[in-house]
């Protein structure tokens, strides 16, 4: 392991240094590592809340059951689909918006306030406002917009529940992508772009060969940070569809197994699969962010 180069080593401060970091580490261990170990233990036992006394060791039976159950694979696929749709929509729209706001715009400050707003809205609020005021098929606003162009109203939550949830979540994350990318764009050398323009480079070529390479790193970071939060999407599902095969992800399945079916063993196994899944993604993030420590 290498030391962080830009930090001076001051040995005489190490004593208080170790003491001062201890409380933070203690809380994190107590709230993450310790319960994770217990989850692993639970996942190997037959533990049901209705029969709390019969907690026998069953090996990997919970995992076998889970992998064979008809609910598991849809939940895993839904988790992936939800992440993929939200990432694509929020980053594509966020990039378009960032490029627009980076242009010669009047009132950029006010626009930033409009754009950032959805990011600070709590998930139950955004989910319920979208579900009722916008997506409701009888008097929602989207039904009215459809009627303007002569289309029949689309019943979002019964015809495409997962997509509906993904759109709501994408709306919440679009501001994050847009503002991170806008910040990066504004640190991009405008002389370089003007030079390319003077040399007669078409705008699309400038975008592809100059701007997008510059944005590769911030886009990667947005992808990974959004993913951390998207693996755990829960409230948006709870308040809109309340589950159901078509819209349940791994996080919601853990909740349903434990709180509705009282099966601690199966829920723990599902939770661990979510953890493994998250760790694979995390590996990439820790590397990308770790690099910025040295920069």
């Amino acid at each position: 392991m290498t030391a962080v180069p830009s930090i001076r080593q001051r040995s005489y401060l190490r004593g208080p240094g170790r003491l001062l970091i201890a409380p933070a580490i203690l809380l994190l261990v107590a709230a993450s590592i310790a319960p994770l170990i217990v989850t692993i233990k639970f996942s190997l036992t037959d533990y049901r809340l209705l029969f709390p006394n019969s907690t026998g060791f069953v090996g990997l039976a919970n995992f076998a059951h889970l992998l064979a159950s008809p609910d598991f694979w849809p939940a895993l696929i839904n988790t992936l689909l939800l992440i993929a749709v939200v990432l694509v929509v929020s980053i594509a729209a966020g990039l378009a918006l960032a490029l627009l706001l980076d242009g010669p715009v009047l009132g950029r400050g006010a626009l930033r306030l409009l754009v950032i707003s959805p990011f600070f809205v709590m998930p139950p609020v955004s989910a319920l406002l979208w579900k009722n005021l916008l997506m409701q098929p009888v008097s929602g606003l989207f039904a009215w917009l459809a009627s303007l162009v002569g289309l029949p109203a689309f019943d979002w939550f019964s015809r495409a529940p997962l997509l509906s949830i993904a759109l709501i979540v994408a709306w919440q994350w679009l501001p994050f992508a847009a503002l991170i990318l806008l910040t990066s764009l504004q640190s991009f050398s405008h002389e370089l772009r003007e030079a390319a323009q003077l040399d007669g480079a078409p705008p699309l070529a400038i975008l592809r060969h100059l701007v997008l390479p510059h944005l590769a790193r911030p886009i990667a970071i947005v992808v990974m940070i959004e993913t951390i939060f998207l693996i755990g999407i829960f409230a948006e599902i709870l308040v809109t569809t309340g589950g159901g095969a078509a819209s349940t992800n791994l996080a919601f399945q853990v909740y349903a197994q434990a709180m509705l079916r009282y099966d601690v063993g199966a829920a723990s196994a599902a939770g661990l699969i979510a953890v493994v899944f998250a760790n694979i993604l995390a590996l990439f993030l820790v590397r990308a962010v770790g690099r910025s420590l040295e920069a």
Partner: protein
Amino acid sequence: MRTRRTNRAIVTLLAWGASLAIAFPLLWALLTSFKTELEAVAFPPRFLSFDWTLANYRNVLADGDYFHALINSVVIAGGSSALVLALAVPAAWSMAFAPTRRTRGILLWMLSTKMLPPVGVFIPIFLFYRDWGLLDSRFGIALLLAAGNLPIAAWMLFSNFREVPGEILEAARMDGASLWQEVVTVLAPLALPGIASTFFLVFTLAWNESFWTLNLATTEATPLTAFIAAFSSPQGLFWARLSAASILSIIPVLLIGWLCQRQLVRGLTFGAVK
């Protein structure tokens, strides 16, 4: 010059159109919150020509549940954020000014706990809380939210403290300042903007947190997230009331967000975007 000016006008128009479209769901909820329930579901929708009323706000404010939830949100978000700072400021101080060979590893480990989805630890914590009477307690929820936000705060403060020149702290030490005096009277004032934006970020995240708050709070400790989630029952059919309750629940953090959007958005990238 003429083309440049029309170009500017077109880009400005497009940017305003796109930004208004993104904020539209919130603007629409704001409008709906001033309608009667009947006008809220009118088809075609009414845009500005309706009887503006404050009845929905009066109803929500007169409802004891709203204030109960508001107070719980303030206590939970404020308490957990204060706890986060109490733990993260000393931790970041030690990592920034008294690093060891393990500092980098500790920072990355803290970050990695953020990758642990809450469902991975949900069941043990739920059962432990049940047995220790911490279910439906503001303290219990605040403790978990603090643990969830601690890594972000430690990273933000660490990168902030690193920008404070060590010579100033050394000079204070030469003048005989104790460690406590050094942190409180020298470091804190210099790092105050960073500490404030860290507080606002973790406060905002705790205010909006919707996994632990929805699962662990049932009656006594329910914050605004749970108050709003209760509208998913047939009550959600009252759109005007839902809109007013929503606006009242998001306003505090929306104001914070508007005031320090740059720091908050960048803080969430763990210092990876400068």
